[in-house]
């Protein structure tokens, strides 16, 4: 018996109906969390979550599990801090063990430009409720003794911002916790059900076509990751989104030793150690769009080279598995949540490399929007219409390693 085998959850599957009040396309974290909050906060339980594969089979099952709020603009910091707060009570609320662990995150700076960014990050984050403090190299070393402050002789550490509340949780378990919570309230989760089109009544979207038949809906929410353009095309909806591969790898399990999460903008890499002792290492998304989940050796070479400059103790660890997710990256690197301009169709997309950490906030706020018809203040900046009105959320800080 392994202590990390799931022993608490019960997933209850239902036979599909032909009509629901809300149909959510995509059984990942965002889709299931939205269903969960619709059911638990707003009493809306006549809901189906339609998943093409198995729940969590997309990016929810492929990310590097980091939860943080240290973004570059107030709108993002507040949103992600809300998410971080919801995460910290999720185990209590759902009775599930998501393996949540607050670790803190060190964001390293090697140049004056990076120092300037990190100082700014600390001031803005703290002002918006996400405690982040600047630390000097010695303090960084005290937090993470394995750090090579010379950066392999090439990337000397000038300082770091320390985002105190950053955490990790096991990605699959987050998905299952929301799935179980929603299912218990009567939400139907339909696996292996590929959406092939949208039902239309004039301009209005009235449901989804699936390989297993049509399903009518009062409201349809697209919560897909990686294939949002395909869904949007069904409604002739144009999106400022490109789909990019995001690669990561994990080592074998080793004795617990790496305390905080380490991240680096210049070297495009981040590392944390899982509860099972594996080092989980990720990077920035690939520059070219692609729907391929094939991993590349170029990535492994580059990422291992960079990360071992900072953390030389990783050199002798063995790489267990490398994988790739595909993520929808918006034109301003911020998510797109809310109305689409197409009646009956809502959207949550553009989560890029930061969708996992947004699951509780994205789900709860989207549920509030669906239930009340009003866009919650935290979501207001993230509407699709911001592009036409030239009010992009230029948070270049929102990418994976920034």
């Amino acid at each position, binding site marked *: 018996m392994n202590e990390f085998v799931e022993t608490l959850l019960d997933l209850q599957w239902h036979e599909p109906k032909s009509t629901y009040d809300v149909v959510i396309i995509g059984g990942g974290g965002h889709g299931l969390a939205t269903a969960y909050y619709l059911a638990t906060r707003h009493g809306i339980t006549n809901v189906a979550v339609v998943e093409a594969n198995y729940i969590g089979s997309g990016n929810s099952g492929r990310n590097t599990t980091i939860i943080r709020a240290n973004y570059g603009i107030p709108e993002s910091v507040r949103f992600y801090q809300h998410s971080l707060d919801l995460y910290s009570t999720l185990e209590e609320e759902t009775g599930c063990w998501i393996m949540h662990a607050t670790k803190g995150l060190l964001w390293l700076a090697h140049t004056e430009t990076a120092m300037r960014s990190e100082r700014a990050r600390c001031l803005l984050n703290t002002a918006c409720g996400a405690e982040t403090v600047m630390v000097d190299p010695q303090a960084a070393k005290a937090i993470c003794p394995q750090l090579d402050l010379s950066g392999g002789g090439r990337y000397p550490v000038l300082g770091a911002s320390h985002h105190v509340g950053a955490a990790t949780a096991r990605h699959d378990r987050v998905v299952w916790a929301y799935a179980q919570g929603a299912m218990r309230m009567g939400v139907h989760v339909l696996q292996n059900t590929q959406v092939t089109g949208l039902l239309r009544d004039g301009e209005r979207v009235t449901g989804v076509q699936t390989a297993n038949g049509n399903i009518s809906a009062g409201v349809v929410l697209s919560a897909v990751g990686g294939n949002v*353009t395909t869904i949007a095309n069904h409604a002739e909806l144009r999106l400022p989104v490109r789909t990019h591969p995001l690669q990561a790898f994990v080592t074998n399990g080793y004795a617990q030793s790496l305390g905080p999460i380490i991240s680096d903008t210049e070297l495009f890499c981040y590392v944390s150690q899982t509860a099972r002792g594996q080092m989980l290492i990720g990077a920035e998304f690939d520059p070219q769009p692609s*729907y391929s989940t094939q991993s590349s050796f170029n990535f492994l070479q580059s990422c291992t080279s960079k990360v071992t400059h900072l953390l030389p103790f990783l050199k002798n660890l063995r790489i267990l598995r490398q994988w790739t997710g595909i993520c929808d990256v918006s034109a301003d690197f911020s998510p797109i949540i809310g109305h689409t301009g197409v009646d009956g169709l809502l959207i949550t997309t553009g989560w890029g490399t930061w969708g996992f950490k947004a699951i509780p906030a994205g789900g709860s706020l989207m549920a509030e929007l669906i239930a009340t018809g009003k866009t919650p203040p935290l979501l207001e900046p993230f509407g699709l219409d911001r592009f036409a009105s030239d009010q992009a959320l230029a948070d270049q800080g929102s990418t994976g390693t920034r």
Partner: protein
Amino acid sequence: MLWLTCPICGRRPIDEFSFGGEFPTVPDRITDPATRDVDYVWMFDNIAGVTTERWFHHAGCRRWHTARRDTITDAVLHTGIEDATDTVL
């Protein structure tokens, strides 16, 4: 390894190139000029399938070329210095 073929320099690992984006298109169904402009500057076709796109060989000749790539498999079907009207597959 992902490889691309530069028409001037030959086959090289993808890290030697910069991605320059697909050729932007605006659907004919959009007729309002302002909406067309919004679409042109912000929206992406984001095709799951064969795209025509620009790559710059920054580590070599420092010239652009046009490639056709299947974004589902990452297979590069054609590279050439021809323009986007080239339809060789």
